């Protein structure tokens, strides 16, 4: 099976001197320093991505305060909301066929997406990264076995996998947030595993690691000091891009009816699915707003990932340089 799966242009190991000078939390300090010294296009990409993600985070956290109504609320103060009403003063984004307020559902939906995605990415990471570290460093049969399993998992169309897992788990766990989260978690573990493992393998053969081993450093020290900080440079990029994918997967599950149930929470994918039948009747607001929300949030995460990659990745990082002025005077002149 081909082993392509790396984010194109993932960072090559950093030089040893840099590692020695900034061990421990210093590694993180160096990361931050690099980010802050970024200029030009990558800087804007990163910052706009962060802005978008922060915006949605705020929506998610403060949903109860920001959203005008509940996500399943179809009346207020004894008055029923109109059904499928276009955007107006009362309902900025209009209402759905179930008389719920679209704007509120979009805001509550943000909370759902962020919740599920953060949980899923966190768990995927916590399982995938250590496994990758172990597998890459220890090698041997354990490594070969794990690689075979992960490759197979990775080759499977991940949406299909997520759908099947969600579907199967829905009998045991009931449909809903947990099922969706578990499905997404499982599907993304191979990604972290592969990236981390490949990186560990390339770092393992670096001369400075060999030197450390020759000097008698314990295995734990080597993994902890040299390998770990080199490797985790890649993880933030993978994590943000995975967050982006996870949202798409969650929305897809919602679209197919295997994600969150409407009684539990609002979900953008589910809303778009309901809206498709509206499209025929020319009702555009029920689908446009949730859809745009998906696009925006996913773009936000992707921008953060791409921006980070541009800045941290020495292979494609490039600084704008000015052509120097060579003074006409010859240096033979007396000082």
């Amino acid at each position, binding site marked *: 099976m081909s082993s392509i799966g790396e984010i*194109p242009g993932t960072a090559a190991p950093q030089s040893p001197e840099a590692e020695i000078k900034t061990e421990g939390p210093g590694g993180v300090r160096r990361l931050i320093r690099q980010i802050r010294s970024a200029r030009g296009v990558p800087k804007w990409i990163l910052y706009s991505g962060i802005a978008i993600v922060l915006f949605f985070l705020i929506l998610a956290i403060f949903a109860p305060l920001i959203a005008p109504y509940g996500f399943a609320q179809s009346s207020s103060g004894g008055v029923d909301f109109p059904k499928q009403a276009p955007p107006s003063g009362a309902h900025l984004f209009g209402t759905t066929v179930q008389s719920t307020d679209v704007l509120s559902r979009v805001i509550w939906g943000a909370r759902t997406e962020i919740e599920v995605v953060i949980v899923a990415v966190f768990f995927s990471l916590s399982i995938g990264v250590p496994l990758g570290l172990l597998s890459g460093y220890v090698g041997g049969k354990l490594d070969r076995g794990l690689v*075979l399993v992960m490759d197979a998992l990775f080759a499977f169309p991940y949406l*299909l996998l997520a*759908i099947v897992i969600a579907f199967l788990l829905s009998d045991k766990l009931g449909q809903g947030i947990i099922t969706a989260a578990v499905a997404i978690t499982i599907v993304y573990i191979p990604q972290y595993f592969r990236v981390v493992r490949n990186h560990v393998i390339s770092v393992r053969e670096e001369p400075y690691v060999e030197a450390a081993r020759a000097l008698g450093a314990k295995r734990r020290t080597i993994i902890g000091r040299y390998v770990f900080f080199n490797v985790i440079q890649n993880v933030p990029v993978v994590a943000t891009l995975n967050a982006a994918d996870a949202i798409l997967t969650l929305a897809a599950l919602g679209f197919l009816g295997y994600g969150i149930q409407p009684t539990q929470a609002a979900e953008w994918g589910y809303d778009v699915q309901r809206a498709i039948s509206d499209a025929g009747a*020319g009702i555009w607001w029920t689908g446009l707003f949730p859809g745009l929300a*998906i696009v925006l949030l*996913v773009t936000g995460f992707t921008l953060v990932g791409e921006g980070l990659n541009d800045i941290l990745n020495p292979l494609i990082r490039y600084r704008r340089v000015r052509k120097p002025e060579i003074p006409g005077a010859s240096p033979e002149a007396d000082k």
Partner: protein
Amino acid sequence: MTRTHENSLRTYLLTRIALAVPTVLILLTMVFLLMRVAPGNPIQAALGGHVPQAQIQAREHRAGYDRPILTQYVEYLKDALTLNLGDSLTDHTPVTTIITDNGAATLELTIAAFFVAVVVGVSIGLVAGRWRDTPWDVGGRMFGIVIYAAPVFFLGFLAQLVFADLLGWLPVSGRASPEVTATLSQHTHLFLIDTLIDGDLNAFWDCFLHLILPAVTLGLVTSGVLIRLVRVNLMQTMKGDYVEAARARGVGERRVVIHHAFRNALVPVITVAGLQLALLLGGAILTEETFNWPGIGFQLVRYLNERDYIAVQGIITVFALAVVAVSVLIDLVNAFIDPRVRYS
């Protein structure tokens, strides 16, 4: 081709196929395990509560679900590899018939979408990589990012609004209009080809129109990944040693860029494009749902809703085998194009 050239290709092919075997086994094992995660067994899950328990037990026995798990596993592997996938629980159609009847539709959609993805993705990626950090580059990247962020069903929704409702240009449902479907003779089940075989240009046009929206939607979404990849690859190849060496011999800049940088940048793209197939197959499910395109994905969703485990298991098995087959094919193409691959 020199004799060594042919030999190395053949050796590579054989090795590659040999390597595929463990992958197939693992995938099939995974499918098997997945299907057993469900409480009880498929038959219980599908029919429990609807049909008296005695009948269920009889059917279980007939289907072999009360045998030890290892025996079931071996049976399953045998069946899967001989494509004996059983009959669906709900409508008793042989699963293989489900596949053949609907597979072509998915195939047609996937190939068309792949074509769109490659054309759009590669051209934008090349432009973006060549003129780095110019508006072309930033624009191209943003396009790639945003289009990938748009779920297929949302694009489908927009397409319906604009192209069907607003402009009335394109149909949004099905593979062909009812009249055409009725008169179509199914040679290959690939409508575009069948209509050409019949020489019926009107029908061809009808099918083509129906294919446009789903294929373009799915293709555009997939192109996002290709744009990113091609761009980064090109930026790296432009700095390549052989590029500098060609310049040192006075080879013109245009030739250097197109012949050396572009071509070398695209080589790994083939592999990744092949892997996009995994993306495409997943996306095909969503696209088929959105546009009522009667393919395997569409059927899968139907059977999932009806809890028809046997059909679901069969369809997924075929998917798994297809994915492995495609990956072998992609590796082969790669080996053909890049001589270095054969020797690694």
